[in-house]
Structures are given as structure tokens and as C-alpha cells.
């Protein structure tokens, strides 16, 4: 299983747009992908699950990938978050 931690750079937090991008990306992979924030863990393939966590600017959260394609999945997610300036990576 791979884990990475991120800090939100988007002013509005993980609102509809970045959340949609993230969920659409997660859905491309077989691996189980989850997001952990505020001691709660949700399926990253669920837009409503992600949005109801209300992750705001400067919050930090963890993404975990587990499965056959976990390496590619994590790479793509990191690439998306950085290139769209949604998040920056930070120490676990």
C-alpha cells in the first residue's frame, strides 16, 4: 500500500471542480483508493464522499492506494494535484 500526504493550495479547498478531477482520475484505476482527513477515511471514487469531508485551504490529508496498479495510480494522482495547483505534497 502507498500513502502520500498533501496540503491544499486551492483557495476554495477541494470544492466541486478539483474534487471532480480527483474522483474522475481515481476511477481510472483498479486499486482501492481512499482519502483520510480529520480521522475519517472515504472512498476517493465517491465525489459526494470526498466533498462532504469539506477539505479547505491549508488542510492536510492523506491518499492511500492499494492494488495491482497502485504505483501508477499514485503517480497520476500526484501529477494531477500538482499540475492543477490543487495541492502540494508534504511530509507524512
Amino acid at each position, binding site marked *: 500500500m502507498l500513502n502520500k500526504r498533501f496540503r491544499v493550495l486551492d483557495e476554495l*479547498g477541494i470544492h466541486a471542480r478539483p474534487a471532480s478531477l480527483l474522483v474522475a482520475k481515481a476511477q481510472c484505476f483498479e486499486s482501492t483508493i481512499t482519502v483520510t482527513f480529520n480521522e475519517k477515511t472515504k472512498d476517493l471514487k465517491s*465525489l459526494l464522499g470526498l466533498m462532504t469531508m469539506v477539505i479547505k485551504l491549508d488542510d492536510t490529508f492523506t491518499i492511500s492506494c492499494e492494488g495491482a496498479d497502485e504505483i501508477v495510480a499514485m503517480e497520476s494522482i500526484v501529477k494531477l494535484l500538482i499540475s492543477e495547483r490543487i495541492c502540494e505534497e508534504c511530509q507524512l
Partner: protein
Amino acid sequence: MKVINGIPASGGISIAKIFKIFPKNLELVKVNNCDVDLESERLKDAVLNAKVEILEIVEDVIAKAGEAKAMIFRAHILMLEDPEFIGEVYSLIESENINAEFALDVVSKNLIRIFEGLDSQVFKERAIDVKDVSDRVMKYLTNSIDEGYQFTDDVIIVTNDLTPSESIRMDKKYVRGFILNVGGKTSHAAILARALEIPSVVGTKVAFDEVEDGDLVILDGDEGIVIVNPNEEQIEKYRKLKENKKEDFSEFFNKEAITLDKKKIKIYANIASNEEMNNVLKNGAEGIGLFRTEFIFMGRNTFPSEDEQFSIYKSVLEAMNESTVIIRTLDIGGDKQLPYLKEIPEENPFLGLRAIRLCLNEVGLFKTQLRALLRASAFGNLKIMFPMITVVEEMTEAKKVLEEVKSELIKEGFNLGEIGVGIMIETPSSVMLADKLIKHVDFFSIGTNDLVQYTMAADRMNENVSYLYQPSNPAILMMIKKVIDITHNHNKWTGICGEIASDLEMTPLLIGLGVDELSVISSSVPKLKKRIGNLDSKECQKLSQQALNLSSSNEVIDLLKRF
């Protein structure tokens, strides 16, 4: 045969069959012991159909407004695939053996509650998206027709009440009249009906229960009478009446409104949509005195984008060539609500967060509209008008935002035109502060509907106190006089865009008080020009002096009748 009485809300006579619109509250029935496979299959079909429909919308939006604007619909598609949404509906069908409709309703209501309870505005607002997606799936589950109504023949609509968004979705080609159980002369359905020249009778209390689909009725919007299943004689009588009513005003289309002693009054048109421009031009309005932009924001599920607004404003400015176009910024709140704007329950919405108050509170929304307006200013003669100013600070604050937006746009390289700025005078405090407010603006426009309501402290929709809605009360006339005098002292001008501007009995009084511009629905423009052409402004002045000395609305009405 039956006669139903109501309030005449929009003039004219129509004879057509009834089309009843029932309240849309879907009665959802819970069915137990369902065939789980069958219900799941039905849900699957409905979701698939909803997805195809959204994909078509996405393509349409991308083509018209670009990729970024389509994002929210992509989110809707993700919701259709969401394990916590549609996934939950499947689980509920399986665990409870219930019908798909009921399961969908339970899950979506639950989600909407969760979203509405979130502690962030941005996230809270997504409740409307859950509702939108759920409604779309429900539509396919229940095989119900879309919100718009399709007609193939002339109809007269009868219903309990009509929201502004419902009425703008109506197919104007076939709708010959509105009959409503509730409402008054100045309810928004009535205002809209007059703008569209659709005869209407409102406040009938009983019409919805007393007429049936397909009944033939005569609707007399001038007298406020509905005759259900009339006999031949009556039909003939009203046909003749209708013919005679078509007085020809065409010679006034291209004339100016000038009194016998050569005083010119500007006659502008009130509009709620750019679709009215043909009517405006045909009737010879010399400008737009009030563009109620809130109708652009109604009847939809999301905010209109800057580009969308820009193209609407631009089309109006271009249609009017170099003539004045006064566009009022969003006047929402009170009895006009937007489904996608958070609704804060208020004890007194008319004394609450509405119009400029709401715009200064939701600056993002306000700025988007101002950006669209300023960008459009390059295409004509634009004046921006702020609604419901009560204190000077609102004025200065609104102008500050306007200046900010202006310098942003200039930095971005947009070409902007010259603009004028004005305010609506519709609260007693703005009247009392008029000499302070005038220093910040180019003109005033008196919104008499609200000014009367706020001054008389009487709800125009409340039948028990609507008798106090007295536009001709000397109290109101004195206010109008004060406002006009102040603008003239500063070499500026005052217009009137409320209902009384089109009341031909009031015209001599308004001219006498010194009004510079009257803004009315376009169909009234030629009539008003004709009326003014028969008046002498000196006589009008004497009349208004007398009226100001009277002590009641009834006395003023008597005086006008004798004039």
C-alpha cells in the same frame, strides 16, 4: 355557465380552452415487497438515460461557453456513478425490497440534508446539484414530462400560483391568458403577464377548483372577470368587444411625447428579458428605463456566467443603438428567490437581505454582473442602476466595487464605454436623503411599487391591507415632488419606472410634478405618447399643486377624474 371574479392584472380579452397546471409536488408512494431485480433494472435504465441527457448538456455547454463552464455537469455525471449516492439507492432497494422512486427520494433527501449542514458556503451550495441529479433520474423513473409545458393549441392557464421561473418557461406562442387563485396587481406573475401582453386575472381564490381542463372560458383582463363555458351570445359580445379594443396607436410609434406647450417627456420601456426587444422597437420606446436583470437569474439551477450575461446585455445595447439603456443590477430577495442561492429564512423578507444589500453581501455575484455590464458598455449607451438604496454608504460601497471592477477590466485590456450611474428611489430614507445621494449619481428612478409599499407600511400582496396601497396618496406625491425638485436643482433628472408611470389617469399629475422620463411596458408606450400629446404642462402643474394640498388618495382620484 359560471362567472368567477378576480383582480384584473393584465388587460385584454381572451377566449380559449383551459389548461390546468397542478402543483408539482410528486406524491411518492412507498411500495413494499418489490421485485428487487426489476427495481434495480429500472434504476439502471433511468440513470443511464439521465447520464446521456447530461452528456448532451455538457457538449452543448462546451460548444457555447467553453470547457470550464461544463465542469459542474461533469460533476453531475460523477454523482450518477457515486457509490454513496446511486450506489446507496441500489443497496436500499435490495435491503428493503422497496421501489426505486422511494429509495432514490430517501437517499437524495438524506444527502441534501448532509450538504446543507456543512459549515462552508461553497460546499453547502452543492445540495442543489444533488437535487438536480436526483430530479433528473426521478424524471426518467416516473416517465414524467419535463418542467416546460408543450402546447399545440391556444390555452388559458389556470393554476394556484405561478413563480417567475415557471412563467418564463411557458411557451408564449400558445398561452392566451393566466388565471391564478392568488396574487394581486403587482405580484410578479402579473407584472410579467403585462410585459408579455397576456391578459390575466389573479386573486380569484377559487378558479383552480371551479374550472376543468378543456373548459372554454372568456377571460376579461380589463374587468377581472372569467366566464366559464359561456353561451354563444356572450362569446359574440366579447369577440366584438375585443375587436373594438384594438384602438390604433400606430401613428404614435415613431413620434416623441411632447405636450401641447412643447415640453418633451422621455418615454422608455421596462423589460425583463432581451426577448422583448422586438416589442420595444415596434412600439417606439426611446430607451430602456428599467431592465430587470433578475429574470436572467431565474428559472435555472446555476448562476448565469459572466459571458452569458455579457451577451444578453450587449444584445439589448446593440438593439437600442445609441439610445439610453438603464440596466438595474440584481434585485433578488423579497418575493423573488433563486433556487441555487442559499436561502436564509427571514421573518420579513421585504425588510431583509434583498437587492443591493444581498449584492454587497455576495460581492462575487455582484462583481460578475458588473463585469458583464461594463464589458457590454462598449456597445451602446449604458446606465447602471442600483436597486433599493437606503443609506449613503450603500451607494458609495456599490460605486467602489464598480470602480474596482472597472480597473480590473482595463488592466485585462477590455475596451469600456462611457457609463452613467443611477439609483432606484424606493425607500422612504432614500427620499429623505435624496439631496445627499444625488451628489453620487447621474439620475434617480422612482420605483413606485416598493416606495408605496414601504411608505404605507402595507404589503401589496395582503388582501386585508392592500387598500392602503395608494400610489396617489398625497404622502407619495410629496415624496415624488421632493425627489424631482432635488434632481433639477442639480441639473440632473428623475424618471419613474413603477406601475403608476403607465396609469394614464396619473399622467397629468406626474407631468405636473415635473418628471423627466416615464418608463412603462412597451405596449403602453404609444398610448402614453398620445396621452401626453393632449396635455398642457402648465395646466398639469396647477393640477399637481392642488393635489399636493389634498389630504387623501380618494380626494386626489376625484380631482384627477374632474381634470
